[in-house]
């Protein structure tokens, strides 16, 4: 890591590799869809979903079970569409969070066929059928697909997730300047929609409940790397993420990065913070 400029270069590089990855994934999906279509012409056009059910108050649901619903398949159908269909047509007590339907509210991270995914952003045709839908692992289930998010929110809010600076310009209507490079640098990290998919996928977070987790560390990164906050604040931020259950806990398992629906390079951000922390600690010697 030398100067700012090279930093951004790496940043854009990863960006375009992201794009490449997405492209590759897209081609794979296209193939898969073709195959799915071929399968479909034989089978009746419906898809089975197996949904995790649990309700602490309802007889018969106190012990978790899986319910199977058969929903008509339509082109472009997402996991969320299938769930809504099942709820509105078969069982109105089927419970899951959702709102925006466009991968921005972060409500519907689910464990679908063994991987954390956003229901609204996952095409049915990209998955193996029948599709198994469960609540996020490593979180307590409140009911059906709804998990308790409190712990995740606590972790997010424990890293002082708000802008702090002493350098607000005094002039009227004057903004703080920020270079384009710096904005680029924090750009990916600002995209987090608090869906908790990453946290759920991380084995370390599962083992150590106090581990800040990838999303919260990413949030800290978003501010630590924002030049508008100033050097002093950066020190402070590094102290926060260096705590006992902070960055050092990360074992670079990458599953967070793999599942993040917003393509945030989480592991990379965590690693960069580790290096920054080591660098700033070295100064004390």
């Amino acid at each position: 890591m030398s100067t700012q400029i090279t930093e951004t270069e790496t940043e854009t590089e990863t960006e375009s590799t992201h794009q490449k990855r997405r492209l590759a994934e897209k081609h794979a999906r296209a193939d898969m869809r073709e195959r799915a279509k071929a399968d479909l012409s034989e089978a009746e056009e419906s898809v089975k979903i197996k949904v995790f059910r649990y309700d602490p108050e309802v007889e018969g649901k106190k012990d978790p079970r899986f319910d199977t619903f058969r929903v008509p398949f339509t082109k472009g159908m997402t996991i969320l569409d299938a769930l809504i269909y099942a709820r509105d047509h078969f069982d109105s007590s089927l419970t899951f969070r959702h709102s925006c339907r466009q991968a921005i509210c972060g409500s519907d991270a689910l464990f679908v066929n063994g991987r954390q995914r956003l229901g609204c952003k996952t095409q049915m045709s990209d998955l193996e059928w029948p599709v198994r839908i469960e609540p996020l692992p490593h979180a307590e289930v409140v009911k059906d697909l709804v998990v308790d998010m409190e712990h995740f929110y606590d972790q997010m809010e424990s890293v002082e997730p708000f802008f702090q600076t002493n350098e607000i310009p005094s002039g009227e209507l004057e903004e703080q300047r920020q270079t384009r490079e710096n904005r680029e640098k924090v750009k990916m990290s600002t995209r987090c929609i608090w869906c908790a998919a990453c946290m759920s996928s991380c084995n370390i977070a599962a083992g150590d409940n106090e581990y800040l987790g990838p999303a919260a560390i990413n949030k800290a990164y978003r501010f630590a790397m924002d030049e508008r906050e100033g050097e002093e604040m950066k020190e402070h931020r590094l102290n926060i993420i260096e705590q006992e259950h902070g960055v050092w806990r990360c074992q670079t398992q990458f599953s967070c990065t793999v599942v993040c629906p917003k393509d945030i390079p989480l592991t990379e951000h965590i690693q960069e913070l580790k290096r920054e922390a080591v660098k700033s600690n070295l100064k004390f010697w």
Partner: protein
Amino acid sequence: MADYYSSFEPKGTRWLFQRLTAAFLVVVLAYHFMLLHFVNHAADITFAGTQVRMSQLGYFLTMVLFLIAGTFHGVNGVYNALVNQGLEGTPKTAVKWLLIVASVALIAQGIRVAIAMTNLI
């Protein structure tokens, strides 16, 4: 949030050392394996051969460093692994000291052995 403000915690330092020793170990371990399994077959090792090698100061020092680095790396790795699995409080302190004692013993014994292998004394 008070606990964030504890000043310097050597976690980052151990992390760094784990990496530095790893980088060192890559080279030395590879060399060690080559030398004692491929160049000289383990089965053919004799005290005499060992003594010849160990009596070269450079080799001797490398092996001692190898031992220290390996011990730190391995023991620190084990400690981290346990801590990551949620080891806390008194057991954590106990394990920490146990590991430190074991490491010191290992290194001490290792150096004793190494010296015995030389003809320096």
